């Protein structure tokens, strides 16, 4: 899931200050789960805007704002309200914002900062475990990703900052390489310690990412 946080109300105020009539867009997927752009948040945004003298001409919670075609279709259903608006305030991840900005000519305002692809620990607590780096090493690291969990993304073992089992960057956090080491020991295998891991192939991560499933062969 994409984890995000709302921009501060001060930033929102700065964003909307030149627009009187606003149309609000939320997202029923990640933004709803992490409480930045679901029904409750869109409603709260509406109240906040109206209190400040703005007019909210309408709102919609898209099923998945990141679905380009579907987002466009759902937004077309609100065509008249969108036409009345001076700008759209979107409470979804950056991907969702761009589905919207692609299908309207009006100014689209992003009300959320997208943080990371997150695992959910419990409600309201998210952890980044995967950086979508395109070059997965998990099979050798006992299922713990050093690219993401090690503050330096090291591939060949811990740095010199390992102290009492903790990470130099966050002493609340156990060193990822220590975890990998311990889990590999438990599994009685050398894993990633058996070889020198070569430098990462960042060409797999050229931006922007694009992927198309080959329907004939499946995703090989």
């Amino acid at each position: 899931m994409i984890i995000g946080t709302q921009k501060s109300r001060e930033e929102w105020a700065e964003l909307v200050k030149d627009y009187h009539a606003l149309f609000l867009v939320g997202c029923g997927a990640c933004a709803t789960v992490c409480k930045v752009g679901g029904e409750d948040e869109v409603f709260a945004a509406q109240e906040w805007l109206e209190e400040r003298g703005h007019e909210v001409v309408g709102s919609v919670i898209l099923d998945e704002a990141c679905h380009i075609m579907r987002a466009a279709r759902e937004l077309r259903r609100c065509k008249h309200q969108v036409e009345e608006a001076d700008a759209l305030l979107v409470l979804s991840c950056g991907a969702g914002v761009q589905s919207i900005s692609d299908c309207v000519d009006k100014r689209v305002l992003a009300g959320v900062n997208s943080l990371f692809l997150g695992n959910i620990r419990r409600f309201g607590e998210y952890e980044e475990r995967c950086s979508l780096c395109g070059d997965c090493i998990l099979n050798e690291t006992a299922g713990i990703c050093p690219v993401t969990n090690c503050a330096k993304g090291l591939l060949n073992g811990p740095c010199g900052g390992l102290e009492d089992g903790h990470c130099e960057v966050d002493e609340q956090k156990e060193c990822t390489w220590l975890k990998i080491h311990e889990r590999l020991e438990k599994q009685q295998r050398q894993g990633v310690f058996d070889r020198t891991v070569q430098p990462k192939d960042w060409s797999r991560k050229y931006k922007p990412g694009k992927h198309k499933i080959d329907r004939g062969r499946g995703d090989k």
Partner: protein
Amino acid sequence: MSRLAEKLSQQQFVVTAEIAPPKGVDVGPALAKAELLRDMDAINITDNQGACMRMSPLALAGQLVQHGYQPILQITCRDRNRMALQSDLLGASALGIENLLLLTGDHPKFGDHKASCPVFDLDSVQLLQAVSGLEHGVDMAGKKLSQPPQFFSGAAVAPAAEPQLLTLKKFKKKVACGARFFQTQAVFERTKLESFMAEARLYQVPVILGVLLLKNVRMADFLNRNIPGVQVPQDLLQRLEDAPDSLQEGVAIAREMVALAREFCQGVHLMTFGHEDLIPQILAG
């Protein structure tokens, strides 16, 4: 072969120290400090140490070479990607720099540019490998060099870090990837050094022990709280606390560490923080 390499290959005990490049463009004070360190076998030039932006160590090391000193150029993976690292390495060779200390680097979180991108395109093991490649006339893309550089590459190790087994796993990788000497993080405990060296010795790569001059108990506390990988044990804190002259006690402790180095290692790397005048005392005995 660098003078440092030669001495180490002859099993001689070496002494190194370090200089941080200036935060500014005047290299005068750094050269003056190098003069104070003239008797050292080599002088490390730190690379944006503690993730604080300073002059390029490449530039200062180049100046040191010109003035007849023997620098060890420290290169970290924090600030440059593999292209920049390799081009700096070629530049270093062109400037007559022979000794390298190849490091991961402290995280920007510790420094004065906390918002900068932590690069870490390579880790220290891969950087060692890249240097070996260049020495064999090929860059990381497999392209041939017109004239390959020759270096004496070192790496860092923290013998006191636990679990030692994990530290040794990385140590082993560094040796396999071309580390020809090690400089250690400051160590204050005999038992840890002893057990580390019992294993490390098998790889037959010279280890130069980091010896840090503790000026007083405040400094020791600071190190314990803020410097990754450095732990001053309780009994030494007590000694510094009780001593009538804590700096002299610090010198005594450093002297004990030098004695340990003579027993287990092949040199010392002195970190004296402005007290270069005390080096003869630290090395005495």
